[in-house]
């Protein structure tokens, strides 16, 4: 039984536990709230808040998630009080002297971390906004200032936007939870980068992943596990196509959930894994839900709930639900709701899930009715055209509305009013990210008139989007592609340089070649001054060889516009 209390204006959920006492403080803020240009700010605050706790002996941690940030600890009552009071104090007065070090720590943390399967799904479904930002690195960090941090704390780390749960007999004495006042911040409304669903996009080999967004309900919860049982049977037990076949259920906002299914596949089997997964999804959509599966799943979920209730493990979920705007539910209510779920209700969820589905697979899924998700922009901006060095097929358009890269089979446009981030390097490199996830890279070293293009872009970028990056290694700055043979075309300056080279090297080669040949011939008849004649002849031969190289290079430059290809 969960008791609802309040401490210093913060709602508190209290429930007894048979295991060790633990407590958690959560705020309704996460990655989904971060504009891409501030990506990483919540995680940074979490780190700064925990710094003051230092190297305490008790077991604690912090976690920044999609919608919630939590500080959790397990241990004696006094330690819980010290920990939570310490976190609240640190949030009120962040240790700003730690700012740069913690940014470094976060960079190191992200370096060691591997991408979750949900990330590409979020990127393609939502783009580079709200729920899509989880797919991006913490690109905002370099630009985050102390003022940014204070403003973020003032908005999100407030008592109205917090919840505390305590698994134990009572709320520990001495708990202050001294947080600034504020307002509850609802989760952001999910945006969409998909014009139609069901949709699909190409992913890495080795994985087939599908997800869908449906209303939150006990039937949706049951559906996720029924789907997992069926996928496991179909893809692993019956056909041996996959080793892993599983599903995941994640709440989104107050009343929606994402259901994700994934199966691994050998590259040569991924077509069959996709086919098998599509068949299972369609089977459930068509209403063929085995009541025995529903019963088995409900029994398993009820068992898990009972166990969770005993050790206070339901508390975090209920606390986060309260922050999301849902009423707290007893285990008994939840269990009763699960028992009422019918196969027909699960089938209804399956039909809705199919309609909102997004599929990632190495091969196309369009045959099964999934529309190809857009990968390129629909139109280019009008404006000034910048040509690429050594690439006659592509161009960069810079206009008053935005920037486009126009390539033979690709078009990427980022409009300034839809731009969410501009990464800027001291060498002039720019990376613009649009809300739809489309990226335009501008490298002045690759463009004719590159600095002018960058200047225009910099002048037009809306405030708050620019993140200045540290200088790149010279090796990381792109250079124009060396033309590998006749595919390239020479620019005007290349032609002039090439012709000048020919004018220089041809006479030199002919004169010294002829002279050398004459000298060598004279050696046959005239043996006087042998050493002198021989050395002059060798010198002439060397100059001639140099001339041949010069002619070759000049000729190549005149025709193809770059130096001859290096042989490795």
């Amino acid at each position: 039984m969960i008791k609802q209390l309040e401490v210093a204006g913060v709602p508190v959920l209290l429930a007894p536990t048979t295991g060790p006492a633990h407590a958690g403080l959560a705020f309704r803020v996460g990655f989904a709230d971060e504009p891409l240009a501030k990506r990483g700010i919540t995680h940074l605050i979490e780190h700064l808040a925990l710094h003051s706790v230092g190297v305490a002996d008790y077991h604690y941690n912090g976690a920044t998630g999609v919608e919630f940030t939590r500080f959790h600890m397990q241990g004696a009552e006094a330690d819980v009080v010290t920990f939570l009071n310490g976190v609240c104090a640190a949030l009120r007065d962040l240790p700003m002297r730690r700012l740069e070090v913690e940014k470094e720590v976060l960079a190191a943390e992200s370096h060691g971390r591997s991408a979750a399967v949900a990330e590409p799904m979020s990127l393609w479904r939502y783009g580079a906004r709200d729920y899509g930002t989880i797919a991006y690195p913490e690109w905002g960090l370099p630009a985050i200032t102390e003022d940014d941090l204070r403003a973020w704390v003032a908005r999100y780390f407030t008592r109205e936007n917090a919840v505390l749960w305590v698994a134990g007999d009572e709320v520990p004495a001495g708990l202050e939870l001294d947080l600034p006042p504020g307002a509850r911040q609802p989760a952001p409304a999910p945006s969409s980068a998909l014009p139609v669903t069901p949709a699909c996009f190409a992913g890495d080999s080795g994985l087939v992943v599908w997800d869908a967004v449906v209303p939150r309900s006990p039937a949706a919860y049951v559906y996720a596990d029924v789907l997992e049982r069926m996928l496991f049977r179909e893809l692993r037990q019956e056909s041996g196509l996959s080793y892993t076949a599983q599903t995941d259920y994640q709440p989104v906002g107050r009343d929606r959930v994402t259901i994700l299914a994934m199966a691994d596949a050998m590259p040569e089997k991924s077509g069959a894994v996709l086919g098998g997964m599509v068949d299972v999804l369609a089977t459930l959509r068509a209403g063929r839900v085995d009541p025995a599966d529903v019963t088995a799943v409900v029994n398993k979920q009820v068992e898990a709930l009972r166990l969770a209730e005993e050790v206070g493990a339901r508390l975090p979920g209920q606390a986060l639900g309260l922050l999301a705007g849902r009423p707290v539910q007893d285990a008994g209510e939840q269990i009763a709701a699960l028992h009422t779920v019918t196969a027909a209700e699960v089938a209804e969820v399956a039909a809705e899930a199919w309609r909102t589905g997004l599929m990632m697979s190495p091969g196309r899924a369009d045959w099964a009715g999934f529309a190809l998700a857009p990968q390129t922009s629909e139109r280019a901006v009008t404006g000034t055209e910048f040509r690429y060095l050594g690439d006659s097929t592509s161009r960069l358009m810079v206009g008053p509305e935005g920037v486009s890269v126009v390539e033979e089979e690709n078009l990427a446009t980022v409009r300034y009013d839809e731009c969410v981030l501009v990464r800027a390097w001291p060498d002039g490199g720019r990376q613009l990210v649009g809300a739809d996830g489309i990226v335009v890279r501008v490298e002045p070293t690759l463009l004719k008139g590159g600095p002018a293009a960058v200047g225009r872009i910099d002048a037009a970028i809306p405030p708050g989007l620019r993140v200045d990056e540290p200088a790149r290694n010279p090796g990381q700055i792109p250079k124009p592609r060396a033309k590998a043979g006749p595919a390239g075309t020479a620019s005007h300056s290349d032609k002039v340089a090439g012709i000048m080279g020919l004018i220089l090297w041809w006479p030199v080669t002919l004169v010294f070649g002829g002279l050398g040949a004459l000298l060598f011939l004279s050696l046959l008849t005239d043996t006087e001054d042998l050493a002198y004649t021989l050395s002059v002849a060798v010198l002439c031969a060397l100059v001639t060889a140099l001339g041949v190289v010069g002619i070759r290079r000049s000729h190549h430059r005149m025709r193809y516009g770059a130096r001859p290809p290096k042989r490795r």
Partner: protein
Amino acid sequence: MSDTVLLDAAAAYPEVAAVRRALRARDWSAVRAVLDPASPVGRSILIRAAADGDSLEDFLRSVVSSDPDDTMAVAMLGMHLINVGWKIRSGYRAQYVSGGQFAAFHDWLRKAEIVLLDGVARRPSDPALWVARLTSARGLELGLSETRRRYQKLAAADPHHLPGQNQYLQRLCPKWSGSWELLHTWCRAEMLAAPPGAVQGVLVVDGHIEHWLELESGGPAYLRSRPVRQEIEEAAQRSVSHPDFGRDWGWVQAASSFAMAFSLIGDKAAAAAMFRMLGDLGTEIPWQYLGDGNAANQIRDYRRRAARHGKAA
């Protein structure tokens, strides 16, 4: 000996005419009256033959929407959509088909896939759906692993299902990104898995005919080579020449393929036996692969030669 050659499936199987008549009358219960008593293989053959008709899409869609669980209607609609697409693609090899034709072809196949996906979701045990899905998988080039998965589903629903085996055989050919090794191994394994006297011996012969057709030389040397000839003779012993070989669904196709193989090998006695079994009956495939592509002319010609040999002997 008559000069008549009857290539239409209706000549061999009277149910074909009945099901076409019922379809022309847009009388679905009459269609079902023919399909219901047929064996699974018979039903697949009937559905395929009937789906060849013109302008059936609206009617079949209305039948499916009034009863989505009627997977015979689903299979016929799917097969019809595939046929429409294949007529646009034309039977030519890929290099002779235009980009626009391919796009339209694939559009029709995707329409079929969507219909069939819902069908198998409702009744995965209906082999006719898998036969259609194997056909569309080949046209859409869905890859070998997915096609094999579909074939395994078919085999689980009904092993030795000749109409689906014909589709899978095509998919295993190099022209559809398969290989001869895969093809011949599979054909022989399927023949041996079927009971003696079953039609599956035809898979071995068809595999070799496909292989022969692909060889540049065009001459009969490949089919006359000792190992190939032996395999074809073994296949005949297990099927068309076996005492248990009956007049079950698919028998005309089996006898027709063997007749052509024996004709090309030059075994006129064996060819004559096949032609006697067939009477006036024949099939377009594989005879249209020969000479001018007119199967009836080719059958007539080779039948006459085999008969002359019979008289001479």
